[in-house]
Structures are given as structure tokens and as C-alpha cells.
């Protein structure tokens, strides 16, 4: 029995060590953003120093991180909302109505869920050039309307959680189809919508390759693209503290979202695994 307790204790210690290894880089990031470049380069500590303001000023000299954050919001918020709304609309249409082409669309969704993104990348860029959409946020927002993965997930959810009789009762009462969708269907599927919405937001907020290809003006850069330009400026090696501060600021909004919605995020990953 004693051996059992000791073994269990050892397991907990190992789990905590692993948790610390997940947190340590973030702790170093926060601490280092208050230390000067010289301090960071010579010693290691987890005690904060008093160079935060100085680092802030150095960082502001390189770029306007809040501009990047605003740009990211301008892309991620509309893309998330449009994606959630139109995916729900499509999923409901596929789940509830029998019409010609329904099966074809569903097959296309399944196929495109499996096609890797790089197949469309070059054609997508060419299309944007042709339509004069380079440096516009439209190619980063509008395609969210057609998100095969989200439609698939919501369709399964509607089929399992929405009973036909509810909608039929509304029909007998003379409700318009769109009215039923907004007032009956949307509230019922709202947990699934929240899950998909949060994952969509994080995906859009963190997206790097596509914005980097579509945007080439500094003032249009989203946060990840702006962060990546840090790499080019070699001076930053001397200004380590400032770079840590920049990373910290870029990470905070996502940590904030995570604090409130971790339940939804975990459940969406779990759902992704068991949907098979």
C-alpha cells in the first residue's frame, strides 16, 4: 500500500514537470520582457527586472503592434461570424431538405475536407491577382463562408439533436422557413456553433501563410505576419527584451480567449476525434 502511494506520487511529480515544461517558455517570455537585452544575455533568472518601459519604447520604434492586432481583429471577427452563420445555414439546408444535388454537395464537402490546402494556394493567389484583391482583406474573409469542415460538423450535430417535428409545428403555425431557422434552429445548435466559432477564431487569428501571400503592405499586416518581419531585423538580437515583449503582447489575446472558452476548445478536439 505504501509502494502504491509512492508510485502514484512519482506519477504526479512527472505530470507536474511536464506541465511546467509547457509553461516555462511562456514564463521566461513574460519575465524576459521586463529585463534589458544585456541582462538576458548574461544571466538566467525568473525574477522580473525594471526595464519594461524601455523595452516598450524600443519595440514601438520597430512597429505598431496594436495596428497589427486591430488588423487581425478586422480579419478574424468577420471571418468567424460569416463562417459560423453560413455554415449553419448550409448544414441546415443539407440536413433538412431533400433536393437535387444535395448528395453531390455533401460528397464535395467530404472530398474537400481531405484535400490539403496547398493544392489551392497557387490558383487562389492567381485568382486574387486577377480580381485585384491583393492587399485586401476580402480573400481572407469571404472564403470562410465555404468551410467544409464546419458544415460537416454542424450537419452531423443537426441530424442528431434537432427533431423534424419542431420545424413542422412551426410550419403549421405559418412560420417562414428563414424565421424557423433563426428562431428555432440557431438556438438549438448554439453550443456547436460556439465550439466551431472559437476554433475558427483561433485559426484565423493565428493564420500565417495565406495572409503573408495576400498582403504586402506593412500597414495591412496582420499580427502573425507583422511578428514574422521581426526575423528580418538583426538589430533585435541586441534588443532581446523588446522582442520578448512583442511576443508576450501577441500571445495575450489568445490566452484570454482560452481562459474563458477552454471547455469548448477541448470538446471540439474531442469531437473531432470521435466523429469517425
Amino acid at each position: 500500500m505504501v509502494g502504491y502511494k509512492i508510485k502514484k506520487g512519482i506519477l504526479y511529480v512527472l505530470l507536474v514537470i511536464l506541465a511546467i515544461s509547457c509553461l516555462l517558455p511562456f514564463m521566461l517570455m513574460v519575465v524576459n520582457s521586463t529585463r534589458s537585452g544585456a541582462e538576458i544575455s548574461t544571466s538566467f533568472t525568473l525574477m522580473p527586472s525594471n526595464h519594461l518601459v524601455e523595452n516598450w519604447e524600443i519595440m514601438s520604434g520597430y512597429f505598431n503592434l496594436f495596428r497589427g492586432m486591430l488588423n487581425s481583429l478586422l480579419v478574424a471577427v468577420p471571418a468567424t461570424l460569416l463562417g459560423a452563420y453560413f455554415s449553419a445555414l448550409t448544414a441546415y439546408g443539407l440536413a433538412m431538405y431533400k433536393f437535387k444535388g444535395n448528395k453531390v454537395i455533401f460528397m464535395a464537402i467530404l472530398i474537400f475536407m481531405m484535400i490539403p490546402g496547398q493544392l489551392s494556394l497557387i490558383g487562389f493567389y492567381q485568382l486574387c491577382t486577377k480580381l485585384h484583391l491583393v492587399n485586401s482583406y476580402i480573400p481572407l474573409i469571404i472564403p470562410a463562408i465555404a468551410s467544409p469542415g464546419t458544415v460537416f460538423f454542424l450537419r452531423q450535430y443537426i441530424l442528431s439533436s434537432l427533431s423534424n417535428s419542431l420545424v413542422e409545428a412551426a410550419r403549421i403555425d405559418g412560420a417562414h422557413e428563414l424565421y424557423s431557422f433563426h428562431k428555432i434552429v440557431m438556438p438549438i445548435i448554439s453550443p456547436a456553433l460556439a465550439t466551431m466559432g472559437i476554433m475558427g477564431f483561433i485559426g484565423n487569428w493565428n493564420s500565417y501563410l495565406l495572409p503573408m501571400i495576400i498582403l504586402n503592405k506593412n500597414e495591412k499586416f496582420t499580427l502573425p505576419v507583422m511578428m514574422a518581419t521581426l526575423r528580418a531585423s538583426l538589430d533585435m538580437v541586441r534588443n532581446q527584451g523588446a522582442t520578448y515583449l512583442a511576443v508576450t503582447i501577441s500571445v495575450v489575446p489568445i490566452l484570454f480567449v482560452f481562459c474563458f472558452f477552454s471547455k469548448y476548445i477541448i470538446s471540439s478536439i474531442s469531437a473531432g476525434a470521435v466523429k469517425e
Partner: protein
Amino acid sequence: MFKNRRKLTAYNNWGYFFVAPFVIVFLIFSVYPVLRTLYLSFTDLKVMGDAKFIWFANYKRVFTDKFFWKALGNTLRIWGVNIVLQLGLAFLLMMVFSDVKYKMSGLPVFRVLYYLPNLIAATSVAFLFNTLLDWRYGTFNIMISQIYKLFGARYSPVDWLGNVSTAGHTIAVIQSWMWFGNSFIMLMAGVQGISKDYFEAAAIDGAGRWTIFGKITLPLIRPIMMYVAITSLIGGLQMFDLPFLMSNAASASYGSIQTVMMYLYKFAFTAGTIQTGFASAIAYALFLIILSASLIQLKIFNRKE
């Protein structure tokens, strides 16, 4: 009766209305680009100008290009180390948390902590580790040298991302650090989906914990393990963000961490080296490789069953 059916058909016609926005955007921004890339892969388009149809010449060039094979080898090597660490760790954690003898608690908290690195944008992760791992001024090397000092030894700093021998592994470790929590949550979801009755029945029959793990847990989460393995292969073969952001074209290690996607990026979007037709062929070649790898994986998993 007849009237009713007509009414139902009228209702069903609403389906077109509901799916119309999706279909329009889908055709323009998903289907067209994929087909356009396919068409371009058969042409000799460089940056601009007229494209001449050259059949399979680009594909022939891709499959005989030693840099393509080198990039594929790099991708597979980084992915291989990554997947062993990532799935291995996730699997061990799943064993610990599903163990019937120890009944570990605290899963909700640990799950959230382990998932944390996956939330952060790859650009931020890359930049954080670029700075932490800087060989002269980075905190990581300074940490190690302080530990060495404690024991009276001298540590000569390692250039983790600059050395050919360490760069790929370093990126693989960071990639695993980012993704093991995700895999762990998926595996745990599988374990929690198993009906409690199985475990209880096995306990009544006097089955030991290893028997329970081997005969109940393992077979029942096999589909999820397959799902995790296949999605990570598809994602892994398209690896781009981390190696792209953590490498430097001027450094010695560049040739050992250039992935297929980085090679594609060079010909598709880097000014001066753009060869759109060739890049499109790389995209489709990679797709064919991903497709056959997934099919092989499926076969292997199904045969064991």
C-alpha cells in the same frame, strides 16, 4: 394527399436557397483554385506572360529533382522524430490517466496545461524559440551553462538551429511540444467514450490492469489512433510555418530543414525564383504522396484488426 406532397416539394426547394451562398463561394474560392493549380502544373508559366501547355514535363522534373527528394527527406525526418515524441508522450499520458489501479485525478487541469502551446500562433512560437535558443545570447544556453557551472564544468554553447546535426531535431521537438496536448485530448476522448460497463465487467471477472488495457482500452481506441496518425501525417507532410520561420537561408543548416512546402514556396512566391507551373506540379506531387501515404497507413491499420 397530392396537394400535401406538392407543398412538401415546395418546402424542399428552400434547400437551394439555404446552400446557395456556400455553393457560390465554394466554387469560386475552393474548386476553381484547385483546378487552376492543376491546369498550371501542365504549363511552363513563369511569372507572367503566355503559358504553353507542356504536358507532364513539370512532373518529370519534380520527380527527377534531387532538391525535391532532399526536401521530402527533410520533411519525413523532422516529421518522424516529431510523431514518435508527440504520439509517444500522448500515449503514455493516456495510459496514466486511464489506469484503473491508480485512478489519477486532475485530468481537466492537466489537459488544459498540456494543450496551451498549441494555441499560440506558430509565428510567436518560432520567434520565442529563436530568441530563447540564440547560441550566444539566448536564455536556453545561458541556463545550461549556469547548471554546468554548478558542477564546475565548462559548457561551450550549441547553435541549436544553426548546426546541421541539431536543427531538424530541435524543430521536431518544438513541433511535438506544440502538438502532444492535442493528440492526448483526442486519445482521452476515445478512452472516455468507452462504456464503463466493459471495465466493470472485466473487474468482476478479475482481470488485471494490464489485461484491461490490452484487451479493452487498446482495441477500442484503435480508430482514434488511426485518425490521429493520419491527420498528423497529412499535416506533417505540409509542414511549413515553424521550419520556415526558424531557418535562415544563409545558415549552414538550411539545406537540412528545407521542407517540401518551403521548396514549393520558393518557386511559387519568392521574387526572383518564381516558376508557377513547376510550383503547381510540386503541389500536386506532394498531394499524390500524401494520398498514397494515407492509403498505406489505412491498409496497415486495417490489416491488424
